[in-house]
């Protein structure tokens, strides 16, 4: 009864405050304030934004790049999904990126991007992003803005608590949000309790190339591990994961997973575990997973199927794994820039629970336990809790920091962002978000050094924010100025797919390193033709390899004869341009793949299996130059048993 009263009180207070927020927003919209806000987000034509923001595309499987403060979309980077815009996942070179132990998977659900760090500060080398459905993690170069590597995570399901980076990019993590039998086996679903597991994976990063290696899996009890963040500075060496469904319900979780008053934060000493594994600890268990790496030199991705993974039983490494109770099915888990405070957001709660790292260490030292869960010690709630942010908002999800002593938390149900003070835990400001905000991002806001000028919220519900576009709407984001005492809503902009989270970085940290074109000299593609003189067509049985080039404004060769119905034609197109922003495209009628977009100096391959006799055109799909419309050619396709000679030409100089 008492709880219900408190809940209702919180609810009405929340509504009141939201109401106030709305009113003040309306009044500021019509006054002088709104015109100065326009200036704050205005980036004049030809000038650059101050920050890059990388938003996950959710069910698009991709990563979209925006400029801040303008909110202009700069690029969509294909990661886990085929992308006909440039041929990613269709071209012969990139197909391997989407291989998994389940076969070729053309789609993924991308969630939480995180930028590499050095000494806890964004370093702009790479950005990582996780895939939830077929558990994977991708690494994207921040020089080429291309996906360079994807590693699958075996023995897991629902890789949501990912892909967060430790402060020297030693490790990134993958979690298990949907507990599963480990190893997988055929068993009754309702015997889940105690039988399912929630492995947490630790992927080590090679500092030179960024290559990912599945170092070990911590075979945790079968709760739903939801979100995570590494410790930093003083808590560096620890990783924290929220979990819900400690009830281990297997059905109707929306009710059954909310029965326990508290769930857990798992505090994991990864340094200790890494040391343990390095010294031969853990057991090699089964697990098949694909590791796909794109080689910039050969411009080709390859897949290595790997077998087996080191599994660590958390009970076997003393002092490495603890649970901390956290109220009401937590979602976000965030660590303040000093590493001292760990914030758990109970999504069915009105409060944030703030844990102290010092208190946690002391409780561990004093063995201040409140029993255990499957042999993992549970630290006493009162011994580790430092404070509570009692905002009156409903449905806290995720927190980031501005580096000036404040935290910013999203509240899904009351649809607002709340600013609060670290240390006193008092609420200092709140503004509505439109509508039902999920995560928010401050550039560097989950690192030791946030760049606390802007914050943006990513909202789940759009409704009337933009011109209507039928039942399906893009999600909305809102940009806030957080440079002053009070937050100021500056801009509303649509996003693509469903951005679950974003990482942002000052543009100056990466823009000068952005690649302009690929050096033809360094193109080691197996089928590259580096000059028109090297172009040719080769037949090998019914496989035909066309070594072609593009340059403004023609293909070489542009006439090909002697192709037969039933052939499989590989068009290997090398773009001979050595100039910034002069890609060429290639498409041929009847191709059941996609076009390809070839960057200057690059070679890409697409296949074509002609089924009809005739003379068929191919052309450049990118408006490359003044004579782009002229950039086309013909392929003559003859009958299966015809004697048409294989020959090719440019400007009527036939070769064979």
């Amino acid at each position, binding site marked *: 009864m008492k709880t219900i009263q408190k809940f209702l009180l919180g609810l009405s207070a929340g509504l009141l405050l939201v109401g106030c927020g709305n009113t003040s927003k309306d009044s500021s919209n019509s006054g002088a304030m709104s015109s100065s806000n326009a200036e704050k987000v205005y980036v004049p034509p*030809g000038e650059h934004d101050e920050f890059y923001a990388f938003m996950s595309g959710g069910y698009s499987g991709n990563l979209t790049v925006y400029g801040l403060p303008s909110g202009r979309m700069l690029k969509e980077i294909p990661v886990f999904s085929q992308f006909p815009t440039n041929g990613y996942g269709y071209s012969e070179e990139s197909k391997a990126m989407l291989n998994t132990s389940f076969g070729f998977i053309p789609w993924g659900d991308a969630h939480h991007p995180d930028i590499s760090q050095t000494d806890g500060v964004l370093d702009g080398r790479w950005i990582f992003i996780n895939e939830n459905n077929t558990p994977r993690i991708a690494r994207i170069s921040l020089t080429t803005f291309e996906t360079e590597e994807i590693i699958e995570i075996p023995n897991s399901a629902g890789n949501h608590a990912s892909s967060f980076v430790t402060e020297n990019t030693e490790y990134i993590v993958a979690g298990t949000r949907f507990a599963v039998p480990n190893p997988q086996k055929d068993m009754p679903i309702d015997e889940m309790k105690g039988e399912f597991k929630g492995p947490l994976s630790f992927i080590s990063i090679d500092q030179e190339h960024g290559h990912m290696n599945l170092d070990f899996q911590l075979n945790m009890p079968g709760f739903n591990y939801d979100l995570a963040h590494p410790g930093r500075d003083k808590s560096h060496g620890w990783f924290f994961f929220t979990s819900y469904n400690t009830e281990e319900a297997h059905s109707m979780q929306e009710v059954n997973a909310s029965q326990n008053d508290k769930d857990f934060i798992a505090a994991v000493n990864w340094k200790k575990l890494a040391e343990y594994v390095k010294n031969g600890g853990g057991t090699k268990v089964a697990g098949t997973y694909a590791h796909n790496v794109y080689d910039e030199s050969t411009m080709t991705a390859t897949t290595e199927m790997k077998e087996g993974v080191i599994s660590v039983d958390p009970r076997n490494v003393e002092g490495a794994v603890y649970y901390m109770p956290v109220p009401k099915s937590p979602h976000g888990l965030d660590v303040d820039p000093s590493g001292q405070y760990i914030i758990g957001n109970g999504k069915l709660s009105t409060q944030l629970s703030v844990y102290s790292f010092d208190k946690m260490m002391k409780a561990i030292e004093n063995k201040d336990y409140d029993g255990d869960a499957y042999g993992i010690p549970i630290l006493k709630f009162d011994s580790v809790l430092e404070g509570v942010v009692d905002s009156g908002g409903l449905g806290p999800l995720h927190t980031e920091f501005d580096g000036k002593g404040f935290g910013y938390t999203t509240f899904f149900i009351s649809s607002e962002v709340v600013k609060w003070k670290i240390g006193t835990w008092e609420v200092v400001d709140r503004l509505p978000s439109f509508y039902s905000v999920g995560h928010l991002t401050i550039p560097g806001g989950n690192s030791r050094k946030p760049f606390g000028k802007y914050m943006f919220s990513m909202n789940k519900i759009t409704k009337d924010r933009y011109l209507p576009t039928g039942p399906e709407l893009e999600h909305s984001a809102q940009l806030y100025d957080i440079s002053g005492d009070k937050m100021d809503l500056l801009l509303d902009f649509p996003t693509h797919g469903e951005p679950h989270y974003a990482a942002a970085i000052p543009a100056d940290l990466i823009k000068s390193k952005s690649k*302009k*074109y690929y050096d033809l000299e360094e193109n080691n593609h197996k089928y590259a033709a580096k000059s028109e003189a090297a172009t040719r067509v080769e037949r090998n049985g019914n496989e035909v390899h066309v070594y072609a080039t593009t*340059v*403004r*404004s*023609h293909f070489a060769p542009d006439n090909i004869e002697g192709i037969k119905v039933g052939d499989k034609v590989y068009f290997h197109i090398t773009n001979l*341009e*050595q*100039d*910034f*922003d*002069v890609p060429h495209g290639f498409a041929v009628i009847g191709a059941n793949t996609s076009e390809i977009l070839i960057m200057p100096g690059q070679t890409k391959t697409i296949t074509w299996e002609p089924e009809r006799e005739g003379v068929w055109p191919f052309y450049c799909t990118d408006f*490359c*130059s*003044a*004579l782009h419309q002229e950039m086309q050619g013909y392929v003559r396709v003859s009958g299966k048993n015809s004697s048409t000679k294989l020959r090719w030409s440019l*400007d009527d100089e036939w070769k064979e």
Partner: protein
Amino acid sequence: MDLKKMLNCSAIVLSMACLLACNTKGKADTEDKTSKAYLNEVSTSKQGQAFMEDDGNEMNALKLALTSPDHTTLVKAVQEAEVENALVNVGPLTVFAPTNAAFNKIDKATLEDLLKPEHKSALAGILVHHVAPSNYPLKTLQKNVEKNRKLYMADGQYLDVTTQGDDIYIGGTKIIKSVNVSNGWVHIIEEVLLPN
């Protein structure tokens, strides 16, 4: 007016515009906007691809001309006519670039007259007559002769391509050197090509 003078002049205009902007501070909104628009006009005149910092790129037609001591008159003409951006355009372009000696064949008074601001469009017309859209390496020009193909120039006129021995002539003037640039070809010629 030489380039240096021109730059000095625009610096003066800019600083005047700045002063204007400062003076109007605190005055009515409309006045402020006017001076801003003026400032904008001045500052955007040197925008575009020609003014982009692009270390690492292969040389484009304009950059090549800028680095050539034999083409200072051509560069001056390009700057006077303000056609820099056309020469760095994605093209492809084939530029027939008259040397300083070629320009010196024009009588001095006519040349100086041509470089005056009031003759900007006439000058631009002459320069455009030196550019063929598309890639024309020597080999392709040679084929033009063999196949009796005309050369279409960017100003809409056609030029004849002929050969004498191993030399290729364009509109009657000899190509003495050829350079492949990132946005096409530059062929160095001995005479200025005058449109009909």
